[in-house]
């Protein structure tokens, strides 16, 4: 009986969604003329190269046009990480100690993890440093670095990342982000205004404050995700 109602609800939801999207032709251009922009997407495509000289338009939107929103997003991530820690906090009882994984992993995984871990860190740093030139950016690079730490957590039973170090990295990155924003205010423009010279398109140092902000976001996201993994994987066993 209950299942019948649920199926009915799913049919209704599916029908409403399908009906709505059947009116939107897939693959049709809704941008309008890019040179005389009337939609917001066409405006971004038309102006990003001239005004910001950033190759990746999505980075320009996320960090420059919607920079304040990204600050909020990073704050949400920070709140999720600290909320997680406060929900899962348990005091160590006598004789307990922290273990990440209860069993030792195989020799193969341990050696492979040790070998590949630095390469993953370098790849993550590459992705967030080149966030304004290639696909990728601070969030993606941070996630790659955190996946490297996850590999180490899985391979080594007693591998730990100090929570103090993570907190420091995270706080400094957050302070850098906010002070870049306040820098815009001090130089007489708005919060998070792009105050530096924009350079030439497709150079590593171009786009004004965008690479600075994305590097800060990369460090912050890496530290937060590693902290989340560390908290979620932390068993406490008697020994």
């Amino acid at each position, binding site marked *: 009986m209950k299942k019948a109602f649920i199926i009915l609800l799913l049919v209704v939801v599916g029908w409403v969604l399908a009906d709505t999207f059947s009116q939107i032709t897939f693959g049709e251009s809704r941008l309008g003329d890019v040179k005389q922009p009337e939609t917001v997407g066409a405006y971004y495509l038309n102006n990003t190269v001239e005004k910001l000289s950033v190759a990746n*338009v*999505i980075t320009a939107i996320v960090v420059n046009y919607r920079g304040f929103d990204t600050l909020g997003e990073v704050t949400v*991530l920070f709140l999720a990480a600290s909320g997680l820690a406060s929900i899962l906090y348990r005091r160590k009882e006598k004789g307990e100690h922290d273990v990440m994984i209860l069993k030792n992993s195989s020799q193969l995984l341990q050696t492979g993890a040790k070998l590949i871990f630095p390469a993953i860190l370098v790849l993550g740093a590459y992705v967030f440093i080149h966030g304004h030139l290639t*696909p990728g950016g601070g969030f993606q690079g941070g996630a790659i670095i955190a996946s490297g730490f996850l590999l180490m957590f899985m391979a080594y039973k007693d591998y730990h990342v100090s929570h103090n170090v993570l907190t420091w990295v995270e706080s400094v990155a957050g302070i850098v982000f906010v002070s870049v924003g306040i820098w815009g205010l001090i130089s007489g423009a708005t919060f998070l205004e792009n105050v530096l010279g924009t350079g030439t398109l*497709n150079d590593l140092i171009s786009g004004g404050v965008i690479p600075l902000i994305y590097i800060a976001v990369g460090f912050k*996201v890496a530290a937060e995700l590693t902290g989340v993994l560390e908290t979620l994987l932390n068993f406490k066993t008697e020994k």
Partner: protein
Amino acid sequence: MDPIIYNKIITVGVYGSAIGLILIGLYAVLVKKHLTKIVIGLSIIDSGVHLLFIAVGFIKGGTAPIFSPKGIELVNGGAQMVDPVPQALVLTAIVIGFGVTAVALSLVIRLYRHHNTARIDHIKSLKW
């Protein structure tokens, strides 16, 4: 194959799979008793919504909105770039979805520690 029918198939395939993912996730959230499966259902709904967003922004024959040397070459050759706004919004949505999943999983762990089970029909104190 007739291009009109081909377009229809592609449209139904892309929108259909996105809506299908949303419905599968909704089914898992409504029917499953195990809390971990409910969290998995939530993240499946997330993926469906992201796919729907990207599909709406896609332009046939369009390139990625990146003005790399290759991208500039393609644009000069007459290709159009896809709408960047849905992609930027999905980037935000993925991060928020991660936060939701992490907090939900931590609540599941907490409930498991307290009741020694993660099935909602076995947690007696929820009934009244």
